[in-house]
């Protein structure tokens, strides 16, 4: 089954290119120390060096720090935060949505009101409020993002569970005398997971954007550089040193774009049209 999924995915050119670029980005960030001998905080050159010169591909900032180094080290933060925050929100959302969809009744009602509440609240405002109160750090950033990102996953999980519960093959499983746990894991979950995986992968994109906004406002971890932070730092000197903001921005756009492409590719691969050969 996974083989087939891979085949359909690779048929989508955009998704395949996206995956390739994504792997490059991830690779570059992971291997940062090997690619750039200097760190993002090291003052290695003259301040305000324009890009595309001899030494510094992306130029230097107000204190003479290498922008290129900033980008590849900053990538680590953005990617890591994006991934971990999404994982946490998916686990949380799955549990809540699954419980609501499976148990129904009062549990469903309460959990859904909770989800609705979190969806009504402006998520970004809550996120910055949380980060501000609990002091900016990578932990608080990840937690804040996770805390505002779980509702769509919960909603989707619940919807999937509710729809799948009414499928005939679930009724057949019940009739065979199988336990509810067995049915939930073997019959419902495998069919519920694909759209959740897709939503999760798109969630990584959102998480990266959220993280960049948080660090842009100066609420990121003060010890770590990230793309959003770099854009924020370059904001006041936009006239003199546009490259300080432009290159990190392009990095964000590129990363989010390829994550979205991969997510859409996953969507096509994991959710094939069900009305294939409707032979009567």
């Amino acid at each position, binding site marked *: *089954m996974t083989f087939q999924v891979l085949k359909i995915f690779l048929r989508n050119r955009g998704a395949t290119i996206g995956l390739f670029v994504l792997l490059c980005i991830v690779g570059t960030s992971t291997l940062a120390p090997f690619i750039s001998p200097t760190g993002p905080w090291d003052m290695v050159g003259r301040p305000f060096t324009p890009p595309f010169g001899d030494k510094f591909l992306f130029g230097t900032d107000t204190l003479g720090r290498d922008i290129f180094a900033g980008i590849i080290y900053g990538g680590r933060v953005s990617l890591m935060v994006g991934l971990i925050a999404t994982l946490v929100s998916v686990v949380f959302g799955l549990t809540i949505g699954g419980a609501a969809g499976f148990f129904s009744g009062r549990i469903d009602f309460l959990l859904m009101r909770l989800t609705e509440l979190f969806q009504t609240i402006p998520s970004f405002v809550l996120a910055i409020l949380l980060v501000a109160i609990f002091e900016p750090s990578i932990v608080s950033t990840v937690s804040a993002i996770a805390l505002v990102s779980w509702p769509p996953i919960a909603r989707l999980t619940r919807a999937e569970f509710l729809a799948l519960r009414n*499928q*005939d*093959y679930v*009724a*057949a*499983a*019940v*009739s*065979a*005398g*199988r*336990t509810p746990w*067995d049915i939930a894991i*073997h*019959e419902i979950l*495998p*069919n519920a997971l694909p759209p959740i995986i897709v939503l999760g992968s798109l969630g990584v994109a959102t998480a990266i954007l959220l993280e960049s906004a948080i660090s842009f406002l100066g609420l990121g971890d003060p010890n770590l550089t990230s793309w959003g932070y770099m854009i924020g730092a370059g904001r006041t000197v936009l006239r003199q040193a546009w490259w300080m903001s432009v290159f990190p921005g392009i990095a964000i756009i590129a990363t989010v774009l390829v994550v979205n492409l991969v997510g859409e590719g996953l969507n096509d691969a994991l959710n094939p049209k*069900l009305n*294939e*050969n*409707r*032979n*009567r």
Partner: protein
Amino acid sequence: MKQPLLSIRNLSIDLPERGDRLKAVEDVSISLSRNELLCIVGESGSGKSVLAHAIMGLLPKELKKSSGEIRLGGEEISRISEKDFRHLRGSEIAMIFQEPMTALNPLMRIGDQIDETIRYHRNLPASERLTILYDAIDAVGLTDPERIAKSYPYQISGGQRQRVMIAIALSLEPKLLIADEPTTALDVTTQAQILELLRQIQRDRQMGVIFITHDFGVVAEIADQVAVLKQGKLVESGNAEQVLSDPQHPYTVQLLNAVPKFPKEARVKLHSEDNVLVVQGLKKIYNIGGLWRKGRKIVAVNDVSFTLAKGETLSVVGESGSGKSSLGRVLMHLSDADAGSVHIGDCAMSELKGLALRRARRRIQMVFQDPYSSLNPRWQVGKQIARGMHAQGRTWKESMESASHWLERVGLDGRSLNRYPHEFSGGQRQRIAIARALSLMPDVIIADEPVSALDVTVQEQVLRLFESIQEEFQLSIVFITHDLRIAARISDRIAVMNKGQIVELDVTHKLLNSPKEEYTRSLISAVPGRDWVD
């Protein structure tokens, strides 16, 4: 000789490359006179619907006409521009489709939807258009045209919606009407009414009508001429009466034989007198409504009682909303009954809970209607059959071996254990579902419309499978269906259900030949091609 209204000559339409054959329609020639009703019959994939769409110029972009011609009143229409075709559609040729609910714009009032056609084809003042509108609604047998015109589609019934579709089609008095399976989605009594309406309109206005169907009963009921399509090719055509009584092509014979006929006398079957299934006073009530207002109560199953002997088949026949499906689910204990009891042998199914219930469940199994949702698309079929047995206590290895054996028993290759549901056809999937049900060695099988979604020839095969397994294992079968002909074919006794209650229950041939209740009589007379089926 008068020129035919519609003349199709050597028409071929290509399928896109990934299709299972080269052409959707291959070298088909058909002609229709002015005052004639032609039925085009075929199973799924026969190309009948493609043909109908081609005449209207509504083919999707992927299907291209490769050769042949279509002439309407002598004029070639398959090659004219889209702009010219638009003038024809709605005013000279009209088409109605299968699903009345989705064929109407849900957000537009019915009056507006009928008026549209008139407005865009004729330059008439509003008052005249209104007259035509009301006349059209009246002509299809709908009363209170003002109310209908103001309503939205969701506010009227399925039968009324189909009448509205016909009104839209006929408002400008076209010469040719194409009906693409317009009654397939309707209840049998509603179908009978619509068939009669179409027949009457065709005669009154002396129109040409092409009626697409898969049901030879309909052919017997209304057709003047008939054309049989198989895999895109025309295999037989001619006068309806003649083809029905003396079919020439083997495929036509096969299709005709597959339509179940009413039996004249009791079935000869050996089944014991012991009652395996005893149902007493079963009730199921649904509550509809939210938190903010009082809910509505719908009594889906209202005090139903019957018994079923070992090796016997009882059909439960009813239209939609009769409660037959709810009954099935309650019998299976998939929903809890609100009153009454279900006993299987000595086991009081309706009272069990928890582990005892799970153990007892194997005694009654279900075969579902939709072959596409009764199997989990993500698992291999062998595993799906084996899981039930495994849950009932057998080892995994035993269960898989047994699964293979059951696949063979239902007529499939035992080695196809590792294939996925989408690799099988609809009929094959039903067989797999039957194998899954059988693997638990139940006493009773509830079959909920198991053949309704299948082609007629495949239906016959699956019904024969049911008969053979019943004979071998002495199974008791409750066969739920809306089609009296299938009930007639397969059951020892028939129970007619209406509004949650069993209206009449009797031995098959007695019920069909001398029904006692009014409702039963109306169901019997609504069967298309009644006289021919007898």
